[in-house]
């Protein structure tokens, strides 16, 4: 069972993280937003969580353990099966998209450099996963 109004953001770029969190809070002030910057911390953090967040926004370009590796780690844990993982990346290359889906991503959001467009994208993406949890 996931916590409906809760999102985990995995992003190691401070500016991007600030933009993402601001966009989410602007949309829903009561939304719980947790953030991690280190790919190695993600799975232990999730396994420790009392209730899983409904959605995880995962930056593909993490330094160190990158997003694809984190994604594979998550999908190896059966207890995290209900966590929706949506990849955030600037690439629109269909090969990148296919790779992420093959690794177990549930969705793919293109990270625009324009803040207004990024906000629209994030809000629409998060709204969808709040309405349609993986378990539905």
């Amino acid at each position, binding site marked *: 069972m996931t916590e409906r109004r809760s999102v985990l953001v995995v992003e190691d770029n401070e500016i991007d993280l600030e933009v993402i969190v601001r966009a989410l809070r*602007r*949309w*829903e*002030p009561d939304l719980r937003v947790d953030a991690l910057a280190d790919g190695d911390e993600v799975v232990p953090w999730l396994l420790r969580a009392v209730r899983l967040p409904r959605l995880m926004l995962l930056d593909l370009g993490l330094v160190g353990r990158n997003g694809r590796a984190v994604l594979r780690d998550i999908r190896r844990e059966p207890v995290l099966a209900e966590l929706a993982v949506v990849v955030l990346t600037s690439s*629109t*290359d*269909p090969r990148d*998209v296919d790779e992420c*889906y093959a690794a177990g*991503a*549930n*969705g*793919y*959001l*293109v990270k*625009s*450099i*324009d*803040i*207004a*467009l990024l*906000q*629209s*994208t994030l809000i*629409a*993406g998060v*709204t*969808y*996963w709040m*309405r*349609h949890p993986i378990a539905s």
Partner: protein
Amino acid sequence: MVRVACSAALSLDELVTIAVAQAKAATRAAAGILFLLDGDELVVAAGDGYPAELMNTWSRFALSADTPASSVVRNRRAEWFSDPAEKARRYPDQAPKRTGFNALAALPINSRRSTLGVLGISFRHPREFAPVERLFLLMLADQVGIALARILDAGHGDGVLHRTRLADPVRRRAVTDAMSAVDAARATIDGATALARTICDADRVHLSLIGDEWTPAAGSGAAPGSGPASPVAVPLCAVTNSPHAPLTIAASSAAGRLPAPCGGTETYLGAPVSVRGVVVGALCVCGGHPRAWSDRQRELMDVLAAGIGTELTLRSRAAREGRLLRSVETRTRLRDRLAAAGSVSQVAGALLEAVADVDGVVGAAVTVCDEQAGMRHHQARCSDSAVAAALGVLAAQPPGPDGVLNRSLSLSDLIDELLGDASPLVEIGARRAELVRMPGRLTTGWLAVALEDRADTEPARRDLIDLAHLGGVAFDQTAMQERHQLATGRAAFLAAASAHLEASLDIDETLQRMTRIAVPALAEGCLVFLADPGGLRLAAASHLDIRVEKRIKAELGADPAFLRIAESALAEPVATGDDLPGWLRAERVRSTPLRGRGRLVGLITLLDAPSDGLPHLADDTLMADLAIHAAITIDNALLYAKRSADLAALQYRLLPPRLPLLPEFDVAAHYQAGDRSLDVGGDFYDVITLAEDRRVFMIGDVCGRGAAAASITGLARAVLRTVIQEGASPAQALQRLNEAMRTAGDRGELCTAVVVRIDGRGDECHLTAAVGGHPLPLLRRAGDTTEIGRHGPMLGLLASPVFHEVSLPLAGDDVVLLYTDGITESRRGDEFFGSRLVTAVTEAGQSAEQVITVAMDRVELFRDESNDDIAMLAVRPRGRSLAGIELPDLTGPSAQPAVRALISRVLADHEAARRNLCRRLAVLMTLVPPSVTGPVHVGVLKLPGRWRVEITRVIPPDGPVAGARGPSRTVPGALDQVRHGMQVMASIEVVSAS
């Protein structure tokens, strides 16, 4: 009818009879009962339809009891029980009691701010209460409450209380002010009450404030101290507010005008207390024995009451100023919150919070819309969703036809507007509503507020109008931000989409990238269909959810029903309803046509989620802009694809479709187009057989690209072929081509060419070569590779050029390579492939095909880009052909006998050589893997001093990549990797001396 019936009721019994009769008639109730509140207990006032034992059980019980009736009074909320199980769940102690009734409605009987009792309506059978039934019963209880209050009042000094004066809103506001000042004036009040008791020598003295209720504010002796409010009809102090005040009673028995609850009071003296000239209550002394009040005592009581009034006036003024200050501070904080709000939702939340703090508000909702941005937002603050829905209906009401923007709705107005939907509002205690317009320049908004029943609603109304003004300004500011945000987002989206659309001519990939950025910025799903000759085909699709995206690609691309919906959505958005599968999770389908040069080239189809009222990027203008851009891109790509395919076909025809099969020569050729985006190239080659022992090989390169170069290429190849067939030597052929180039046009077209004639049968040959501006051919002989021929001028450049012929003998297995400069000028950075070609040719295997393959492999490894055409033509004399056979399959059962027979026949006089060859061929053929299939040629050849058996097969030409069928992932039109010639599969030799 209920109102009329209740108004006419004269007694409690009649009232409950009427109530139960009305309930029965409307809802088929079986029984009804009326409980009245008596202190801390509920007592049965009247009942109908219940068994006597039940009536006895309920005759009197504590207000704190765990029963539906007690709960209703405590919470002032109705309770509804559809079946016994529901009642048992909420009141476990009641479960064992079998009453014979299976459904119950327990309704509070309220009068203004107090609850007088409970009306219970029971039903024999389980039943659900429809909203309209609930509303009816709530209204029935309301009317019973009004009638009951009137009946109770009738028993308490009717004719003494001055009801008009009591109900005066100005006076009530003065009372409210006075009550707020009591604590601050406590010392004065206590001193005055003590003095009054002393002066009047009374048993007790108290100060009463009479607003909606009687509120003792101070007391001395046995009088009540300051405490909770009671019904206004209870005390004599209320009578003091009548025109008969000050009221002086020497002996109640004599006066005969005391209200019933004033038992124990025999003498009474009340002096009115005024605040700002308005009577707000009374200072009273009373006693248990008859006595007369002296004029002096009455006079002093008036003085003390005036003193209290003055103190309350001053203190209330200070309190009012304090309240005003706090109100200003509250408003300032609210303004700050509204100014800091980043979204419509946050503005609405802050506004509703402030509205909820207004006295008497039981629920509120705002509806605000910005038509230009496509935003419509509704938000409510209330106890449950049914109330929110009812307020939403109110807030969505347009202004009345009379132009009145703000409306005050009475209970009957609410019922008229909402019908059954009004019941949730009535149930939470709302008895009226205010509908206030929030004025804005950019937005239109309404504030719908449900209010309790208050005698004076004007202060609340003023507060709400004030808040609505603040809300209107704040919503305007937010709308401005939203519009700016939208405009920026749309511009950014179009810029990103344009960049993707212009980045490539690979249409399917480009469209896939475009749909990827469109999701979810424009919609939850985005599909692009392209118009193919066979109809629409799904070219790209993206969805927020990979589960849905996979199914779209697998199931919707070829689903005629969905295609029909997508096409019909061109006219206007289509609500999906039951027409689309639920897994698509779309509420609406929108399609935008893609038109290129006036014809439909495709559709962009958006799958929309249920509307959330928020503004979205994908408005009609953005979709039109996107469609124009995408359509131009698609149309250009289609044109490019067709043109490239046409050019590829043209170029293919400028090369020989296949090389001639020469039994005595091993010939291979290779052609590769340069940059894929360039037009048709100018390289060509050809092989012409003039006689069994005379063949001509040529290669050329026309300067330039495009249709003009292609036409010169065609001309050059045709001229050379014609003049060579007429018998021209290589030099003469180049001369004739030079003349043709110079007379063909005045555009200064140039080309280069090499013509090589080989005379002989494949064992001992003679080569004659002439070169016009072209790289010299290479000759590989005995492990050494050299250039042959002499450089001559470019064709078309000079009027009378001289082309030198070079002749030399050509032995078996010598390899001559003709090539264009695309090979030697292949680049890696600033470095050219150049002489590496000589090395490659030297190191390659024996056959012509191996020479070409090795040369190309080395070029591919070397170069970092391929922007020039490459053509190569290699020829190797294989020996004089003695005989040959065609075999359908080398591994077939008849292959070995056929080959053995061939060798035996040709080498009948050379026993040793025959045996040697047959034995080695037998071994070789057993080693042929089964995967080698297809026809082969087996030839017996004679070279000086040796015999040779070669097994060869034809390499089919690759042909041009098909591009005319429309856009595809591969750029159409490139004439790529045309290889043809003969592959030597095996070659076995024996020396003729053996």
